[in-house]
């Protein structure tokens, strides 16, 4: 079974169809997805701003991360669930949509970025976390994060224009 066949199957499934054709289902799920941007991207942006030494400068980086990231994970949950439901209902349509594929690729990169950050430069955070100025690699991770998430939001919005 090819990926396209899978998308066709999902699209035609009773669950996918129910969401797509219901008057309120798709709009409500989409609303949750758009407002969830606040929780996921908003909190990530604030962490990135701390890594760039622009906000909460007197707070140790590890403190900020520890306390903000639970919210970010909550936001990720909202986005993943709502996004999956949206995809499910429109799978066959999104399969051929270049913006959707770009968005998925960007999401993967946006997930890789913190993984690399946490397993490399963040390991030594006790040495640099208290100061306003952070290592170059931490700043790079922050800039990448802000850029990737902005691109994800933009391509996400653009999906509807390429239907």
């Amino acid at each position, binding site marked *: 079974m090819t990926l396209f066949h899978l998308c066709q199957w999902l699209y035609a499934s009773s669950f996918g169809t129910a969401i797509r054709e219901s008057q309120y289902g798709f*709009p409500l799920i*989409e*609303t949750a997805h*758009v*407002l969830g*941007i*606040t*929780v996921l*991207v*908003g*909190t990530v*942006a*604030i962490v990135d*701003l701390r890594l760039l030494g622009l*906000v*909460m*400068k007197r*707070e140790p980086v590890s*403190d*900020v991360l520890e*306390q*903000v990231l*639970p*919210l970010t994970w909550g936001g990720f949950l909202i986005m993943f669930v709502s996004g999956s439901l949206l995809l499910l209902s429109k799978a066959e349509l999104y399969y051929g949509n270049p913006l959707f594929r770009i968005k998925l690729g960007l999401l993967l990169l946006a997930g890789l970025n913190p993984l690399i950050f946490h397993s490399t430069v963040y390991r030594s955070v006790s040495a640099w976390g208290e100061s306003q100025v952070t290592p170059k690699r931490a700043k790079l991770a922050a800039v990448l994060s802000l850029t990737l*998430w*902005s691109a994800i*939001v*933009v391509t996400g*919005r*653009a999906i509807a*224009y390429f239907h």
Partner: protein
Amino acid sequence: MTFYSLFEWLGNTWIGLAIQRSTWGVAIAEMVHLLALATLGGTILLVDLRLFGIGMKRQTAAQLARDLSPVFWGSLAVMLVSGLLILAGEPMKCYYSPAFRIKMLLLIIAVLFQITFHRIAVASSTGKAASIWSKSAAALSLALWLSVGLAGRAIGYF
């Protein structure tokens, strides 16, 4: 001068006309609006959850709000500008949309609440514990801003 003539005027400015004639004008303004919404919402969430006693516990809500204040006001400014540009691109759609009118009303209330009762609640929350006042202010703030967002989303529908 009526709102109608104001919206009409806005649509007839050179920038309004330029946006209306372009294919991507409104879309780009909307994307900027969304990005600023993310950072605006992030600051609101962090401060209001702190007023509830959740999250950034090592700082008081007052310190947190002060730290994030530039991000809040900067994001709001970007949202106002991008919002105006969207409005200039679709003035009559917005004028006749009940959701748009409700959103503007809620926005004014949310901002007024932010700079009055919410500010007082935040400034007085210098302890670690959340009082009934700080929790009420946080709840109302979150409800108001969420309503603004929902109304904005509804503009596409009615």
